[in-house]
């Protein structure tokens, strides 16, 4: 590749730069068009993060999984299962009435085990991730309903306490959901970049047979990413339970697809091996911004959110295809 000038930006950075550009453009559009309604206010920005917290946290696992060239369709159902389990276990009427400090770790362990089981099926039986996690989706959703068939409102002091946690920032408070979101993205970015596990995810996503010959323990990494996917889905479920104050077996339908959309808009290639954790967070914010703009328009129906998200997703898939073709031609 010969350029008239020296660029220190590699090919792998192009999708994430496109994501950043889209985020800035969408934000600028909203700020200019709806400037009179304080679009760019701190309050709005905090609520943007808050609105994206559940999907954002779940998308951490999805990012690792997609980087490893897999897919996870069970996310939404696992979130629903988690909220239901928590609601039942803390309820003295429906369940044992345990303290959330006990129940939340149990929920996280269940989610992780669920993901681990999916990972084991995918690795040991060489089953396609799409089918395994599709089965996982039905299983988790069914389990959620069998735990309790209706929404359960949670009345527990500890939950009220967690709902009121907030770090003051300007005139608004940063709620627990946003704190958890940011802390876990920081950890995930760190893991993806500075640990052997993180780099091995990229390695097997880039080329699995080569990774094996390079001495990467494929099984450990693969099962690891799905376990992580289960863990972050469960964590997203915990945050959703706190935020909404209920357990809801019938909610969170399609969250796995929103998470995948955020990952792809965030510049991670569905073909695996290329992408950045931070991109997914940007993707979540972009989807949130679009929703915010359309809400502010007032006259547009909320389906326009989906239409814009669809168009954007399409654009990113095209960009990825073009990049892959370019790589093939020059490589």
């Amino acid at each position, binding site marked *: 590749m010969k350029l008239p000038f020296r660029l220190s930006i590699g090919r792998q950075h192009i999708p994430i730069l496109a994501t950043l550009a889209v985020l800035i453009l969408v934000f600028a559009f909203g700020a200019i068009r709806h400037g009179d309604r304080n679009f760019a206010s701190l309050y709005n920005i905090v609520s943007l993060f808050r609105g994206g917290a559940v999907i954002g946290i779940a998308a951490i696992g999805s990012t690792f999984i997609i980087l490893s060239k897999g897919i996870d369709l069970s996310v939404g159902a696992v979130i629903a299962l988690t909220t239901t389990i928590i609601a039942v276990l803390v309820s003295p009427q429906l369940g044992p009435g345990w303290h959330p400090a006990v129940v939340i770790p149990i929920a996280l362990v269940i989610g992780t085990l669920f993901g681990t089981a999916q990972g084991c099926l995918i690795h040991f039986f060489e089953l396609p991730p799409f089918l395994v996690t599709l089965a996982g989706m039905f299983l988790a959703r069914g389990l959620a309903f069998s735990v309790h068939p209706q929404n359960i409102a949670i009345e527990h002091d500890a939950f009220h306490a967690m709902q009121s946690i907030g770090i003051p920032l300007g005139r608004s408070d940063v709620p627990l959901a946003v704190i958890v979101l940011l802390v876990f993205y920081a950890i995930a970015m760190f893991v993806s*970049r*500075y*640990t052997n596990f993180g780099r091995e995810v*990229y390695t097997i996503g*880039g080329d699995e047979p080569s990774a094996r010959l*390079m*001495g990467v323990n494929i099984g450990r990494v693969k099962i690891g990413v799905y376990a992580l996917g289960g863990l972050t889905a469960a964590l997203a479920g915990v945050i959703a339970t706190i935020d909404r104050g209920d357990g809801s077996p019938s909610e969170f339908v399609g969250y796995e697809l929103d998470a995948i959309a955020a990952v792809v808009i965030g510049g991670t290639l569905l073909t695996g091996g290329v992408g950045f954790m*931070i991109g997914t967070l940007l993707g979540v914010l972009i989807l949130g911004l679009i929703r915010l703009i359309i809400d502010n328009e007032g006259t547009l129906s909320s389906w326009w959110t989906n239409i814009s998200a669809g168009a954007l997703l399409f654009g990113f898939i095209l960009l990825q295809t073009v990049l892959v073709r370019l790589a093939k031609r020059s490589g």
Partner: protein
Amino acid sequence: MSESSTHPPLLLVRGVSKSFPGVRALDNVELTLRRGEVHALMGENGAGKSTLIKVLTGVYPHDGGTIEFDGRAISPASPRDAERAGISTVYQEVNLVPTLSVAENLCVGRFPTRGGLIRWGAARRRAETALERVGLKLRVGRQLDEYSLAIQQMVAIARALDAEAKLLILDEPTSSLDESEVDRLLELMDSLRSGGLAILFVTHFMGQVYRISDRITVLRNGAFVAESMAKDLPRFDLIGQMVGKDPEALRAREAEVRALHQKKAGGGTLARVNGLGKQGSVAPVGFEIGEGQTVGLGGLLGSGRTETARLIFGIDKADAGSLEIDGKAHRPGSPREAMALGIAMTPDDRKVNGIIPNLSVRDNIVLALQSKRGIWRRISPKAQRDLAAKYIASLNIKTSNAETPVGTLSGGNQQKVLLARWLAVNPRLFILDEPTRGIDVGAKGEIEHLVADLAEQGMSLVFISSELEEVARVSQRVVVLCDREQVGELEGEAISEHAILEMIARAGEKEEEGETGWKPVPLGDEERNERDGDG
């Protein structure tokens, strides 16, 4: 050499056997490697070379015999295990991850860490040091697939050496490199040998074997045939050992092929390529193709050989010139149009562009004919079977029957199926792009022979091969290309590998300043600080 041979050998393989259900892949094989030597492992496809390598590198366990390495018996259980013992391998296809950075490709599995965390600075320095050993300077933060295949291959070697290897196994490392890149690689092997490394070199290229190897071990049908000093083993004797035939018989056959090809074609001109060219692909080329003539396209990898063929067959549409057939000018815009003109082509990468591995031999053979006739005029099952049987017999395709999936055949036989597919449509002009790449000596000979037979029957052929010697042997006319430009033409008696090379070299001199051949990418200071990720 003379000094090191007094030391005990580095690797002693004695009586090693390996069976798979129904096949004895290795039978009592022996192999002896000394420090500081390049040792060629030769044999036809299926001779057991790959199996032996996989046993040495711990991919397969061996059933019997002993492997002694560096003074102690070993039986590696995994590639990792073999690496730890000091046996590193670079495979035919570059086994690195194209989407990772160069530095990561060198460090995955052995990142320098502190407290479990990767130290990127140290990793980059380590990568640069490893690359220095193979004489490369790259921006290690760049994604690997931004570099050419040749450089990727050298990075793979750098990675293998980084594991403190005592024995480096190179499995067909040159099959995707062009000549100047091969030179680089052989130079590197030479300097590594001087450093005391033992290199086991597996290749199909005879020329390279004789240029670099000290010793040659030949396997045939899974069994050890002979070990010889390279300088004491004439080429024909080596081939004789490999195919298990008398060198005299081989010599006679080669002479026969040469004689067949040198026979002057009697017919007139079939086609005239008139300045066919395409911006960004190849500059306008022009040559004549006589009836029953074989025209070779000679040149290094990337010289525009394949591009020229693609223009003639309409895969890429030319933006200049024309293809004149029967006195009428055409500019094929698709393979379909070219097929209508009576042109056929086998692509250079049969795995990607040609063979459909899961379909049977019969289906693969019938494919082109069926597509020419259109889907409404189905070829009857009986006609299909007859067609398949005819070509299996006439091309000597080794398959258990016509319904075997093509993917299970050896490379040479897959190539023959591909040839049969196009022969079935009875083309007037047949373009063969690298028909002999990656297939063994025996099959190569058969394909060369087939080319001669076809020309004899009056078919015109365009023949492309990386092995210029082969091009020289089969062609009555050679169009020489260099840097995507036609630089000359040779005819009849004037054709030789030497003459082609000379023509390419002269073209290279003319544009001494040009960006030809292999050059390391300079590493600027600003790139040293470059980061290769987020974080």
